[in-house]
């Protein structure tokens, strides 16, 4: 009995020591856990870029959709490199040129995407779309042509854009100015607003500012002349003649004093803050005017004297919400599937609905009518599209876009100030353009 008890006692002592030791051990483990908290899981990083960054009206919705994607696919981390305004194009072009391409990106149709496709930088998704009939079928059939080059499809078109003529209706009413239907009425309105110290047209000489110029080009040239800007190595005349209209408006004082140095944000703010009466802007501007639905209107661009294309012309096309996948991502087994999923997420019905309902985007994805909640202004834009007899692609997408942004837009002050003629501007521009 005694011996047995002694052994039992010894055993229990050892057991207790072990127990205590294990307790202390687990404490140690807890400590090491503490130090490990900042060692993060390795996630697959997907880089994404579009022009829907910064102050863009779609930036918030985009962020929200990318966040959702991150939650759905925890193995992925989406790095959103989207940039607003003039910073976007140089950034994406530099990245693609330096082998630093983003995995998924949004880019409007035009010379740049054509060059990228030609350079083999963009993934060919024709077969993918063929194998995913349901996905492919969710888009408007007619717009696939915008992303198809030599029979192969590269991009998924989500966003339809137009360039509209926005007016602060309340200012017109307040000062008894007639909404301009013709160029003369526009000039009259300019004079009227100047009297009341209202900037007639919110304009600057950056790329977005040139929408005024682009509209005049479309009015003057019509679809054929605009979409094929070069004939025999020179620019079509509508491109040159349109400059004179802008110059005339400049001389009339239709633009802000600091139009040459003004940022796009400030230009938009002039209109939004009712300091300017009119602005030519893209359809995405509707998203910025959520609380101005009744004080703003979108009207057809005033008819010019030499109205070659007839009255109902609209600059129309796919916007930056046309998504592509880089060839690099397509060929990276770690990224391919996730990139495709991101592409699908961005162009899904839910995402399209979010953009439609939150930003007034015009969707290329077929959506059920009952779920769409277009704002008054967005509806106005849709009506404009329906009533337009001729849809013309944005002139800047037919001329080399970089030349447009980096040269034409930037030289505009010199032309407006009379230091340079429209002809010399375009001569130089044509020289700089390599992608005829």
């Amino acid at each position, binding site marked *: *009995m*005694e011996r047995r*008890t002694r052994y*039992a*006692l010894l055993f*229990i002592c050892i057991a*207790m020591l072990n*127990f*205590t030791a294990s*307790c*202390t051990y687990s*404490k140690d483990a*807890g*400590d090491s856990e*503490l*130090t490990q*908290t*900042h060692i993060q899981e390795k996630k697959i990083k997907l880089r994404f870029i579009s022009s829907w*960054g*910064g*102050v863009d009206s779609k930036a918030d919705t985009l962020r929200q959709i990318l966040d959702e994607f991150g939650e759905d696919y925890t193995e992925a981390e989406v790095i959103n490199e989207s*940039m*607003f*305004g003039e*910073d976007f194009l140089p950034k994406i072009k530099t990245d693609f040129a330096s082998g630093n391409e983003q995995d998924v990106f949004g880019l409007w149709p035009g010379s740049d995407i054509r060059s990228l496709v030609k350079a083999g930088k963009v993934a060919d998704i024709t077969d993918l779309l063929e194998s995913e009939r349901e996905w492919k079928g969710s888009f408007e059939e007619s717009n696939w042509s915008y992303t198809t080059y030599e029979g192969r499809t590269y991009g998924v078109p989500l966003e339809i854009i137009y360039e509209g003529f926005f007016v602060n209706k309340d200012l017109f009413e307040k000062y008894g100015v007639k909404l301009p239907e013709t160029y003369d009425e526009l000039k009259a309105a300019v004079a009227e607003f100047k009297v009341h110290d209202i900037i007639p047209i919110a304009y600057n*000489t950056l790329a977005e500012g040139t929408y005024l110029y682009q509209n005049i080009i479309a009015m003057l040239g019509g679809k054929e002349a605009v979409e094929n800007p070069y004939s025999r190595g020179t620019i079509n005349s509508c491109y040159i003649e349109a400059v004179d209209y802008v110059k005339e408006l400049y001389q009339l004082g239709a633009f802000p004093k*600091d139009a*040459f*140095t003004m*940022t796009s*944000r*400030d230009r938009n703010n002039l209109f939004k803050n009712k300091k300017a009466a009119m602005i030519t802007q893209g359809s995405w501007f509707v998203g910025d005017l959520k609380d101005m639905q009744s004080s703003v209107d979108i009207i057809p661009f005033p008819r010019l004297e030499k109205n070659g294309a007839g009255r109902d012309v609209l600059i129309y096309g796919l916007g930056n919400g046309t998504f592509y996948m880089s060839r690099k991502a397509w060929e990276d087994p770690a990224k391919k599937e996730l990139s495709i999923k991101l592409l699908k997420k961005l162009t899904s019905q839910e995402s399209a609905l979010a953009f439609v309902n939150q930003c007034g985007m015009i969707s290329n994805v077929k959506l059920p009518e009952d779920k769409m909640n277009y704002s008054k202004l967005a509806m106005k834009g849709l009506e404009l599209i329906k009533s337009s007899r001729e849809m013309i692609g944005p002139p800047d997408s037919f001329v080399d876009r970089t030349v447009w942004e980096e040269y034409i837009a*930037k030289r505009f*002050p*010199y032309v407006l*100030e009379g*230091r340079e003629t429209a002809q010399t501007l375009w001569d130089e521009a044509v020289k700089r353009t390599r992608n005829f």
Partner: protein
Amino acid sequence: MNNRVKRAFKVYKNLSIKKKLLLILNIQIIVPLVLIGFMSYKICSDIIKEKSIEYSQDILSMIQLRFKDYSRNLSVISQDLRYDKRIYDILIRDSINNDPIDDYENADTVTNVLKKVVQSRDEIQSISFLSFTGKNYYFDNNSKKSSIKDIAPYPEISVRAREGKGSVVWYLDCVGKRVENIYLARTIYDQDTFTSEIGLMVILVKKEFLETVYHDLETKNLQNIAIISGNNDLIVSKTSNNEYLAELDLEGKESPWIDKNAGALISHVQIEDPQWKAVTYISLKVLNEEINLLRTWIILVIILSISILSILSIIIALDFINPINRLVKGMGKVQEGQSNVHVEVDREDELGFLGKAFNKMAQEIHHLVNGIYREQITRKEAEIKALQSQINPHFLFNTLESINWMAQLNNVPEISETVSDLSALMEASIGRDDRLITLEDEFSYADKYISLLKRRFEDRIELVKNIDSQVLGIKIPRLLIQPLIENAAYHGVEMCREKGIINLNAYIEGENLVIEVKDNGMGIEKDELEQLNEKLSMDNNTYFKTIASKKNKSIGIENVNRRIKLFYGENYGLEIVSRKGVCTVVIVRIPMQHNQTREGYYVQGANSR
């Protein structure tokens, strides 16, 4: 005090061994366990606390270093911009009536420079150059919706920047106690006059970047890191205790310290440039979480250990105490007068030895009380009887001797023989020599007795001996057979008119010696015989109880029977067989072999008279 100790010691001394053992064992268990538990809790909690504090201090030092780096980087950037000849030229040539194209070109130039910096430096949100004519050249990182042009309080910044005399100053734009925007500003002076201002450089710092300075350093425990300005304005923080941190008075406080009201451990470190403070705020609750967990574990372990060890100690104590208690109980019984006490012994250790020794001792006492003491009493009774009937044996003896002499002188040999026989018989019954005697001697007494009776009854009495010669040397206590012969003579001859024949048989039966005394007297009634035999077969205890209450009649046979039982044990004694009108046989059955020590006691006992 001394008295108290003494009293306590006395109380302890008077405790039962059971209580003592349990008390000691429990003290031995509880005191070290509680001490070890308390010490390990204390040490561990100190270590955890120390580590947390150390860790938070380390992190703060790291933050301090990073901020130094961060601040230096911003200074370098601003200095680089300051060195930019293009910007300087534009600022110095700035005039109110400027050509729009010049403005455009200037803006383009400055913006391009700024763009490069803003886009390549994560810590910068916007940069703005304000010329003395009020022209604002700026560039915003377009991740934010507001522009530096609209949000920067230029007049205040400019006043503040002047204090720096051209070097970098920090300007914090606060809403309440919370810093909304952080600016780095410097006045730009004419490089020829050194005094006339030509512009103001304002850099809007990205607040999110400030967080990245420490955000990878955060841990589960250390999530509340805040940067506080010299005026206690909250620059960045991730804590919900913003108000609390903003109102913290860090003056003269040595880091780290515990704010008991807020229940938090607060560490802070002074960042040199800008004069900000990095504060970490660890809730004591969070800090103590681990300590509390540790404490719970230690308490659990101690309780578990105490329970297990207590059960063990109780088992061990009972193992010791139970045999002791049994011994104590046994001793109590002995003390009360019970002599036949036996305690259960189930072990071979010292306690087992004690138990066995006690059992042996009790047995001895039992034997002494019953065997010796009672036997002596019985003998005394017999002697008293003898004394009652023989007034003075010595006197009688001497008288008988005188008669013998007289008979010889007068030549009457019958008288002489009779007196000699009587004298020999008396000597035997009074006998000084108490040693066991051989059966031969005992039988010779019987012969003498019969010879005496023959004087009286002449031929009416006859003793027929049939004795196995082997038995003659066996020693037995004195006067064991003679009283039986006397009894046979009385019942067989005196009460009868016929010739009385007394048969004395002695033989060996197995291990026993059997002696039969048979008379041919009137015999005993069946009932009486049963009663007699029943009485004879009584064990000593019952017998002595009954004789205490009843007056005893047949002393002779009873006396012999009791002496046999006391001397040889309960299994031996007398048996009477009788047939009414025919005969009565008294059978003595005693063992052949007998323990010699018994003889010793017997002899001693007899001698101690």
